[in-house]
């Protein structure tokens, strides 16, 4: 680790992106949703550094651009012009016709609320569904994606007890339900479920047995007490709590010169 970049030169978003990039494997099909710049950076970094056979999926646009030197970050996924890099394109209705093959697929999800078992909510907040206190944007395709993909990541732009709650008012994705390693299997959900929850403060995973959210590593300079104070439920604490690794100089160089030359991840 001594060769890694010093933490004071990094933004939490850069640490998040590099952590996620390292966890992605070559040959995976990696799908990025709307307005997720950290995830977009992570996916592109992995593609450039160790994923020459990755398929990048931005909505229906599927691409492999590992042979390009740079992968700039425009207003990308939601914009029709992303198709300039595509090798194929599927319209909405046809995107859900091949879930059989989604064991190769990885995706990322945010949420209005996330609970200790990685269930998420994009529907809204408030006790009465007919008159919600906060009406969310809707589930997009996350219920189907979370059901079938090999694994997925919960990625939050901020870490607060308003988001990380004891119980979601509504569940738009089923992560580990009420807990337990067999929770998904009992419901017949074939996908691997949420693997990590990554925030600007830390990385969390899920206990192997009860699938309760557990602190996995804290970003440089963050204490577990700070994390717990910003979390709306009691986190499981691991026996050993490492610091989230910082990038190697090569990773940071690629991130800043090839993936995010405009420094978006330092200005969030």
């Amino acid at each position, binding site marked *: 680790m001594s060769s890694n970049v010093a933490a004071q030169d990094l933004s939490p978003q850069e640490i998040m992106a590099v952590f996620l990039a390292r966890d992605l494997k070559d040959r995976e099909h990696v799908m990025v949703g709307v307005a997720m710049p950290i995830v977009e950076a992570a996916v592109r970094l992995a593609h450039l550094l160790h994923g020459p056979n990755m398929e990048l999926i931005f909505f229906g646009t599927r691409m492999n651009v590992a042979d390009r030197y740079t992968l700039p970050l425009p207003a990308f996924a939601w914009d029709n012009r992303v198709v300039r890099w595509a090798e194929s394109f599927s319209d909405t209705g046809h995107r859900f016709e091949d879930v059989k093959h989604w064991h190769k697929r990885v995706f990322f999800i945010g949420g209005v609320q996330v609970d200790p078992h990685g269930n998420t909510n994009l529907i809204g907040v408030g006790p009465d569904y007919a*008159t919600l206190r906060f*009406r969310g944007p*809707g*589930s997009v*395709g996350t219920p189907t*994606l979370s*059901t079938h993909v090999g694994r997925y990541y919960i990625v939050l732009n901020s870490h607060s007890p308003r988001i990380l709650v004891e119980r979601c008012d509504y569940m*738009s994705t089923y992560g580990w339900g009420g807990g337990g390693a067999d929770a998904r299997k009992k419901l017949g959900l074939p996908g691997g479920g949420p693997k990590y929850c990554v925030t600007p403060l830390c990385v969390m995973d899920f206990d192997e047995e009860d699938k309760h959210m557990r602190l996995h590593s804290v970003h440089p300079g963050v204490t577990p007490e700070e994390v717990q104070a910003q979390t709306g439920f009691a986190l499981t604490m691991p026996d050993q709590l490492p610091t989230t690794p910082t990038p190697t100089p090569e990773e940071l160089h690629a991130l800043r010169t090839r993936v995010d030359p405009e420094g978006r991840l330092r200005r969030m």
Partner: protein
Amino acid sequence: MEPRTSHIIDEVEAANRIENGMTVAIGSPTPMALVRQIIRRGLKDLTVVDVGLSLDMLIAAGCVRKVVSYYAGGGFGVPVAPAFRRAAERGEIEVWECEEGILTLGLQAAAQGLPFLPWRGGVGTSLPEVNPDLKVFSDPIQGETLLAVPPIKPDVTLLHAAVSDEYGNVQHVGGPGWIDLFMQRAADHTIVQVEKVVANEAIRKDPWATTIAGADAIVRVPYGAHPFYSRGYYIQDNAHLKGYLDASTAAAKGDPETLQAYFARYCREPATHADYLEQIGIRRLLELHEY
């Protein structure tokens, strides 16, 4: 023998085929000339199958009673479309809560004449609680737990596409749109607005490119998707959309003036699509031809 009948009508006649209370599905690229004509006519109590800012406009203009949607984000850093959010929070609209797979299946069930289609996405979530039309059931072969998705049956589907011949043979450029063909197959009646009407021979040159065969009606409206994009023709007018989003946000916070001015200028005062384009100006339209 009579000659073959043309399917071409204008946008005013097209919107006249829609009645208060109907279910209207709106494709993407967005058929905005028809959406504006709905607002101009002041249609009420529609059930709208749509996503995004065109949905927000129809709600803000008071046309909508029920929304069938899996996503109503605002874009430009605004996570939820403002009029949708406010109307839903106040209970002024009903939301048929779903997600992409379920919406697709509902349209497919209608097109296939089936009382339901099964789906696994959404099992374990709150979707069947907040949308009681989605029934949890055990499949008759393996006994697995699935959701039964009922048919979604638009009375009318409105689409935007690149070209058509006068007989309703539509060809898209760059893919047939987000979920457009599902909406067309599910609907009783489909009206497609197009950038251009081309010769029947031009269609027959590449019959595999025909995405909709024999649409019920064709409306010729160049720039008809503005302020949204039209694949192969022009890009999205983000400045215009941002203007709408700001106005809709202000209205949702209790200041409706800018939004009223928006609707007056772009929907109510122009009598036709050509009048709308005059309001936008040729200079602005031509700027959208740069990738």
